[in-house]
């Protein structure tokens, strides 16, 4: 028999066949059914070789493709709402192409040619997995299934592993939350026996899993902390990171640290430098807290104002609707044509009146919010300015320390040079260090280069901080403004839409009455 292609006709036919019946069916026929409205699709015994053309079924919940000759799982990427997928009785060899189906709960791959359980990581909600009549021969595949916390039903019969003597015990032990195995309920006794039998290996496994879990959590926590620091623009300032980076690329500086006395000098320098860094760090956190509070208060106030305005609007609309309904029913009951017309005009006026009221309310809110936003903008900019100023002064202290250190280092270097020239130096110096002490210029240049590198590092850190905080501030203010504009547009659109609808309704009424 010729393999069938999954083309549009096949799909249309299936959809029409499986669609609504009777009166609803007539309607469906009349209107046609869009693929994206289909929730469930059955395509069994169609001799399909390749899954294709399914991308339009975005809202599909249940898909049956069993009893075909499919060889690869593909073309299912778009069906993200899929809950139930049946691919049993096909010719699939590997599990693949299921990474986007995060909502899948029931997966059947019964009677295929699968030899390894893998590539199911995305299916966090998986509850039922049917893998019977396949070619799985390695018992370790079961361990892979431990990650599915909701898995309750599993079938593996008809695989090479199910021949094993220990098969049932093994599965029960390694998947303790499983309720049904191979279509049978696991009784408590079996579970207990299995647990006892495999206790040691499972304990070990659990221990390892716990360890990885703990490590993952720790890493996560560290990442979050770093994110927090980054949000405060003072990341890596709670230690010697900046100081270390200053010396990381500084060849001369490292060489010079071998000079007598420089070691202690460097130690003292580092301590002082780190203290200033810590000061910046703590100050940054505090400022971050302050900015956050400012934003929270602002958002809260804005929300309150909007809420109150909305309540007012809702009240106005409710009042209007009450009156409008009475008017409409009065018009319907009115026999005299001129009176009807007069009343319709009155209703029209009411609608215009409502429109004006709502728009006035909105305009009022816009004005109020604008004022508040401006005040907030000023405050936040001031806050950021203060932060920058203080950070700059602290950074200046760093620079002073560096200059001080530079002077000391220079003095020691020149002394050492003099000693070397006089041949009075007692200590042994490495050759590359000694190479610097050729003449005065070389040594002064070397010390100077080291100094320049250090200053550059400090400047870079400072610049980075300032640029980032400034851009954050601009972004924040921009976002508030755009949000407000968006809100305003949405509200105006909503009002207009509502008024149009009311007006339309009134016009239709007019029309209908004339027809009658």
């Amino acid at each position: 028999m010729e393999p069938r292609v999954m083309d549009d006709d096949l799909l249309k036919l299936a959809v029409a066949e499986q669609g609504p019946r009777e009166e609803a069916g007539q309607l469906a026929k009349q209107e046609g059914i869009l693929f994206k409205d289909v929730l469930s699709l059955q395509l069994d015994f169609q001799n399909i070789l390749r899954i294709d053309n399914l991308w339009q079924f975005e809202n599909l919940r249940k898909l049956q493709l069993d009893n075909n000759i499919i060889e690869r799982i593909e073309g299912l990427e778009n069906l993200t709402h899929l809950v139930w997928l049946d691919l049993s009785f096909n010719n699939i060899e590997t599990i693949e192409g299921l990474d986007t189906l995060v909502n899948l709960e029931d997966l059947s791959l019964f009677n295929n040619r699968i030899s390894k359980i893998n590539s199911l990581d995305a299916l966090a909600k998986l509850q039922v997995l049917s893998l019977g009549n396949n070619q799985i021969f390695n018992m370790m595949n079961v361990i892979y299934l431990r990650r599915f916390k909701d898995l309750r039903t599993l079938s593996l019969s008809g695989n090479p592993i199910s021949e094993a003597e220990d098969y049932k015990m093994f599965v029960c032990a390694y998947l303790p939350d499983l309720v049904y195995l191979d279509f049978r309920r696991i009784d408590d006794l079996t579970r207990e026996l299995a647990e006892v039998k495999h206790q040691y290996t499972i304990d070990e496994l659990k221990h390892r899993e716990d360890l990885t879990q703990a490590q993952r959590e720790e890493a996560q926590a560290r990442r979050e902390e770093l994110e927090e620091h980054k949000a405060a623009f003072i990341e890596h300032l709670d230690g010697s990171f900046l100081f270390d980076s200053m010396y990381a690329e500084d060849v001369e500086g490292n060489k010079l640290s071998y000079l007598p006395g420089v070691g202690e000098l460097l130690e003292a320098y580092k301590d002082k430098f780190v203290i200033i860094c810590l000061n910046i760090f703590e100050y940054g956190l505090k400022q971050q807290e302050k900015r956050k509070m400012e934003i929270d208060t602002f958002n809260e106030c804005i929300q309150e104002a909007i809420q109150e305005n909305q309540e007012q609007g809702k009240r106005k609309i409710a009042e209007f609707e009450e009156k409008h309904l009475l008017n409409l029913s009065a018009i319907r009951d009115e026999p005299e044509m001129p009176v009807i017309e007069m009343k319709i005009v009155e209703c029209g006026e009411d609608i215009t009146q409502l429109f004006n009221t709502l728009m006035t309310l909105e305009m009022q809110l816009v004005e109020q919010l604008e004022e508040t936003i401006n005040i907030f903008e000023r405050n936040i900019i001031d806050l950021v300015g203060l932060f920058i100023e203080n950070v700059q002064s602290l950074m200046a202290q760093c620079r002073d320390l560096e200059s001080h250190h530079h002077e000391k280092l220079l003095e020691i270097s020149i002394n050492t040079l003099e000693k070397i020239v006089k041949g009075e130096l007692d200590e042994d110096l490495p050759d590359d260090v000694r190479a610097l002490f050729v003449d005065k210029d070389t040594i002064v240049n070397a010390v100077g280069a080291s100094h320049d590198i250090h200053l550059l590092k400090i400047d870079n850190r400072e610049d980075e901080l300032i640029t980032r905080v400034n851009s954050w501030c601009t972004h924040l203010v921009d976002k508030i403004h755009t949000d407000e504009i968006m809100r305003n547009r949405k509200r105006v659109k909503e009002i207009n839409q509502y008024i149009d609808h009311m007006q339309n309704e009134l016009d239709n009424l007019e029309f209908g009455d004339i027809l009658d």
Partner: protein
Amino acid sequence: MEVLREKVEEEEEAEREEGVERPSRPEKMTKLLRKEATTLTPEMLRDMEQKLSEIKVPVPGEPLTSDTIDIAKLPLSYRINTPKEEQLLQVADNFSRQYSHLCPDRVPLLLYPLNECEVPKFLSTTIRPTLMPYPELYNWDSCAQFVSDFLTMVPLPDPLKPPTYLYSSTTVLKYQKGNCFDFSTLLCSMLIGSGYDAYCVSGYASQDLCLMDLTREVCPLTMKAKEVVHEEERVPPKKYAIKPPRDLISRFEKEQETKRQEEIKIAEEKRLREEEERIMEAEKAPPDPLHGLRVHCWVLVLSGKREVPESFFIDPLTARSYSTQDGHFLGIESLWNHKNYWVNMQDCWNGCKDLVFDLGDPVRWEYLLLGTDKPHLLTTDDDDDGVNDDDDDVENLGKEDEEKSFDMPYSWVEQIEISPEAFETLCPNGKKVIQYKRAKLEKWAPYLNSNGLVCRLTTYEDLECTNVLEIKEWYQNREDMLELKHMNKTTGLNIDYFKPGHPQALRVHSYKSMLPENDRAMEFYESARVDGLIKREETPKTMTEFFRGRPDFLSYRHIDFGPRVKKLTLNSAESNPRPMVKITERFRRNPAKPADEDVAERVFLIVEERIQLRYHCRDDHITASKREFLRRTEVDSKGNKIIMTPDMCISFEVEPMEHTKKLLYQYEAMMKLKNEEKLSRHQAWESELEVLEILKLREEEEEGHMLTISIYDTKRNEKSKEYREAMETQELQKKQQWYQENQVTLTPEDEDLYLSYCSQAMFRIRILEQRLNRHKEMAPLKYLALEEKLYKDPRLVELLKVFA
């Protein structure tokens, strides 16, 4: 001591026997009493008439005289004085003589009235501090209420003089009547027993107080609790609070307006005040010619002990508390507790308003005995007197011992006892009526009325109490959990209140008529109902239901009924329900659904076949989606049935969606709504049935009015035990009779059956008898054991010495 114990036993024995034989003894006794008293009435009446010629006595009652009391049964301490008491009487006599010498213009003191055995007893020894075994009587207000309820007031023989007799509290409790001195002595004993710093006060008071006349007082039950005005905390405006829109109203005009309003208000207030004054004037009592001379006795509770923050008076007749500055109290002669006796040396020209109750101040209060634990002058600049008091106590201990010439002897009065039955009965014969201003309060003991009525408050429109305004009836132990019935006579509205536990979870039922399909409102304990119904209101044409906590978020359902279609059969909701015209249902927001798909209100216009839906409003929107379905069954030009046309569903969508435009979607939605309409109609019909059922149940309950008896209520369950035994015996006798008659015709099997039944019944009867007897036997033994234990307790040896 030995004698005493025998006495107690004897009495107990006697009481037990009587209790078994005839539980209605108190009634008979009082009857006896009354008979004897009538022989005295002529002279008594004449005497009274002379003295109280112009006074109306609201509560008549014959005073207790020594003739009616069987003094032979009273303990020895009642009949004779111990040497110590004799000595005390001498001291008192001496004190009295000195006093009359020093203050010749003052009334002689009341110090040692005669008791029921004609023996003079000093006032303080008549107070017998007792802590009652009932937790209800631990606080002063309940104590006072009990005394005032339990005793019947007898006016003083001479309203201008203190009585010459003062009986022991045990006698007073036995006969349940007494004058204000008896009331005060009993109340004071109880209050001191439960730790209060209480004193009996002898002095002068207003006519109303002396005669227990409450007709000029507003009933405390009618007073509405003062509304607590919640001062709304003004939240300081937040930093970014928006500025209010500019106010465009003229301030001047506003000011003028408020000025005008205020003037009107002031005028109104003035008018109201004048009105009030006029009414007050009309209600005022006629002036009393004996004002300020009427002798009264009441209780003073001083601050300090039992966390009493401020000293106050209790009138024992009415159980009301007054401030020490109250205008009803016109003067104090003396006051006493179980330890000492003080004479007031302060001027009472301004009633009790200026009196200072610092009993340690010898200038203001002259004491009889030196060296009791009160005599500390409170110095005004003493801030930490609490601490000082303790110190002084310790320091003065030795001093006092030296100086103390005499110590108050122990009370001669027997232990005050109130039996649980008497305590439950509350009032003499279990019934009491109090007349208030424009109100009458009636009280009954629980289980006295077969319908469980315990209290009734009738409010009147006028002072003469002829036009009833409303009646409130309180019930207890009702099987149907009815708690309060409120009947408004002017509007005809009845409101019944229920405690939790009614079979239909009813909480409040207000109605004018018990007929169905009338104005009524029923409130329910919604947690006890599966459907979460809180309230159901009815008018002849509508029914409104309110719900809470339902899984389908329904909160409100309103049904409009049309006129009933005439049928030949009987008209009732069950056989021929009224047609429903309109059903309105409202739903709370279901957070699991998006607002555009969560219906807020749906209206089924049943006659027009129209369904209106209003959806919830989105959080950031002011308009909500609406949809209206109109079912038209029409046929198109070709004769085919039109299933669905676009004009059958008119919708307004806040955010237009693709799929809702489809006819199929609309058709399915409409079909679903049709089904739900059916369900709603069914539920409405069920509600109607339920109303009928509740009304029927209520009627049955009102007729049956069953009372519940707690399983802890040993008295009533004892009765039931006896009853059971009697039943059991009767049945056996019947069976035996039957056996005698049919003995000849019986088969062996029947006979076996009968015999086994007999043996079983006998066994049950025997068990019941045994239980009863064991209780009878065990009780006295237990009492004896307790007494033995008390006797041997080293801590109580001191007390026993006094008795010996």
